[in-house]
């Protein structure tokens, strides 16, 4: 999950900006730290060679430099931020080879549901994508907020109930990488890790075809089982009955997921959550 080992163009561009920004700042930060230590050491009281200037409290030239150095750095970095924000807007399309793959990600307590509306399939805690294709991801949440984040593919984004966020990514190397939720969502939050399988464009249709043979069907009824508050140990796959399931979640036609149930009025903290685990 190393951010310095990107597996797609978005992560690579994010990383370049990260490293450039650090480099720009280091150019003034390192000399400043050295100056602090050097001044503090040289002007120590016990150093007879240091000149004592008890009234040196103002210098127009120095003030000018003092304001100019951070200002210039920030102007430069501000440019990086402005251009970077526009080029790497998560909602902007990412070019790629082959036809784009639409994915609808739904965060639940405490698992990820990935819907492929065009392929009429859905998976839990496992995302399979073809290498090189633009990934057009729409995201929402069935309960509380989460963040969809695959560190080696780049940019993360919030998932929120009743709302849709957009993220465009691309994976450039075959293999398996990991994703996670990057926003605390309750007791099962650490188990919201998921695998991202990046497969060849030829293998992807095979995988879709196999998945479509799944005996389990996902629809407005069967999703209720998924929407119980628990940790999903396996990685079930589904045949999607209605490609508009995602819209039903977003529009709350499928009501938001329920929270923990209380066993008694007061002891819920210690009992309720253990049931859930």
């Amino acid at each position: 999950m190393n951010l310095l080992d990107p597996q797609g163009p978005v992560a690579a561009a994010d990383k370049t900006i990260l490293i450039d920004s650090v480099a720009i700042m280091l150019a003034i930060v390192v000399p400043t730290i050295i100056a602090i230590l050097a001044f503090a050491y040289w002007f120590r009281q016990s150093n007879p060679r240091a000149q004592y200037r008890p009234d040196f409290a103002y210098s127009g030239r120095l003030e000018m430099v003092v304001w100019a150095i951070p200002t210039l750095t920030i102007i430069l970095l501000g440019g990086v931020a402005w251009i970077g924000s526009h080029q790497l807007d998560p909602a902007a399309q990412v070019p790629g080879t082959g036809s784009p793959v639409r994915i609808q990600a739904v965060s639940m307590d405490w698992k990820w549901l990935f819907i492929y509306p065009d392929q009429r399939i859905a998976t839990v805690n496992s995302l399979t994508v073809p290498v090189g294709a633009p990934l057009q991801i729409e995201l929402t949440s069935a309960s509380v907020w989460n963040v969809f984040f695959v560190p080696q593919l780049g940019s993360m984004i919030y998932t929120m109930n009743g709302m849709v966020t957009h993220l465009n990514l691309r994976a450039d190397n075959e293999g398996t990488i990991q994703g996670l939720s990057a926003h605390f969502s309750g007791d099962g939050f650490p188990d919201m890790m998921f695998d991202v399988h990046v497969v060849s464009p030829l293998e992807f249709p095979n995988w879709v075809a196999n998945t479509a043979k799944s005996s389990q069907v996902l629809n407005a009824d069967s999703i209720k089982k998924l929407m119980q508050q628990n940790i999903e140990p396996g990685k079930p796959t589904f045949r999607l009955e209605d490609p508009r399931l995602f819209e039903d979640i977003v529009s709350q036609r499928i009501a938001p997921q329920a929270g923990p149930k209380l066993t008694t009025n007061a002891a819920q903290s210690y009992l309720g959550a253990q049931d859930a685990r």
Partner: protein
Amino acid sequence: MLGKLDWSAIPIHEPIPLVAAGAVLVIVLAVLIWAGAKGYFPYIWHEWITSVDHKRIGVMYVLLAMVMLLRGGIDAIMMRTQLAIAYHSPGIFPPEHYDQIFSAHGTIMIFFVGMPFVIGLMNLVVPLQLGVRDVAFPTLNSVGFWLTATGALLINISLVIGEFARTGWLAFPPLSELSYSPGVGVDYYAWSLEISGVGTLVAGINLVTTVLKLRTRGMTYLRMPMFCWTTLASNLLIIAAFPILTATLAMLLLDRYLGFHFFTNEGGGNSMMFMNLIWAWGHPEVYILALPAFGIFSEVVPTFSGKPLFGYRSMVLATMAICVISFMVWLHHFFTMGAGPDVNAVFGIASMIIAVPTGVKIYNWLFTMYGGRVRFETPMMWAVGFMVTFIIGGLTGVLVAVPPADFLLHNSLFLVAHFHNVIIGAVLFGAFAGYTYWFPKAFGFRLHDGWGKASFWFTFVGFYVTFIPLYAAGMLGMTRRMQHYDVAEWRPWMIAAGVGTILMTIGVICQILQLAVSIRQREELRDTTGDPWDARSLEWATASPPPVFNFAVMPNVAGEDAYWLIKEKAKRDTLETREPDYRDIEMPRNSPTGFVCAFFASVTGFSLIWHIWWLVGLGLAGAFATFVVFAWRDHDEYVIPAQEVARIDRVNIAERRAAMNMAETPA
């Protein structure tokens, strides 16, 4: 009768909180019995609990902060222990417990360590620096302190009765809404912050009024010490920002108690609004804590360099610029919420602009050392440690202000390392520097230097050993608030951070030993001059500890560094022995109003949390009655006669002369 409260609220099958709470109870009882046996209760009641003296209140604020620092620190130790262990294993704390620990850690460290520490130091020092006898509203000051203590008390009660929030320290909805957090944890969180928030707000009003309206003769704005400027800026921010917090949490409470839909998923609620509102308070809050710390360093660095502060006017400008800009950057806390590139870029650049005045401050401290004679006493060690650490924290801060970089680092341990880098590096180092620097002013003897330096080195090195690994783990994609993990590459960094925590714990133990050793050796460490550091501002012009009226005669200020000028003048013409014209001094009477108010606020808060409605009514009625009794009081001041003032001042002057002669004879 008791609302939701019954025996199941006591976590009998959870040994850790129960044992911890038992230990705390035993310690508190032991202290009470000891104090009672020694007959200290009347003294504590008359001289401290009911005191409206800004110095006493300042000391109590700092004491509260230090006690809560231990509580928050223990939380930190538990978290780092858990993460060092919980690789492919559930660790020692189940999630429902671990989630409370990190929520309590953040809440306590910001609201009940950072805030009372800086407010306490401001309370103690600012009236002295301004050359006045008290703050603008002494009794309100006491009320503010005791309401803060109420919040701290409620949070500690949650350890044994019920639970604390399991939502993180900002309790984001919809997770913090009734449907996802049905327990009393979020209610403990919200009510303790509502009550202590009122305390903070009145403290802010008080200090702003003090700086604006109460300054001694000749103390113009541009002659005020830097710490007074940062106090002004910080408290203006309190007045502007804390009502937002109060209102936001009130809306959350309306959702939870009365079925409103401000932030719920259903019924048209909008949780993004909470995010905006809480950070509209939360980002200024960062500067509410940091600005006073900058002020402390602006006192410490000139004093121990034997020079005036370099670029004073620049510093004033930078301080006020930070004060204003800090209100315009809140959105950088959620670049990843899906706003468009224009919005993200504008807020990213605005956030970076704050780095300009902050950078200017660093350079001004740097040039204050230039041409100086730097004495490395403990406060100066903290100051140099701060400058180095804070620059690194500033670098990573500006980095996460670049939206595309934030898209990778948001909510990661990198971010956690960043804000600990600035909060520990600036606020905690500043608080420790201020504590060591002004301790002799408050108590009349210095703190032991050797233990102070030991504490500095352990804390400084421990900080890097703890948080560099967290930066690294963040670069490996690790996110915050995980109770366990299965990723092998994170493990070594979690263990390293655990080792760093041990070092920082030793630093804290050194600090405790320093206090104990200093109290035992107080006669050797006694400061009779009132000016142990050869300092520059007016708080050092009076005795240590200062008399209740601070200054026998209000000082007359002729320029910046007021006390330095007085000292220079005294050296030039030694004939200045004319006795000043002593007058009667009126001082505010002590009042139990603050303590009684806070008692009823505690009762009200607790019963609101547990839905004990009759007790809520009783508590509110009691608080109102206290207010009425106070408002109709007959005597609010007492007079210290001129002879008494003269007697106290002559003793002070004689001691000071003796000490000065002693200092000058060898030279």
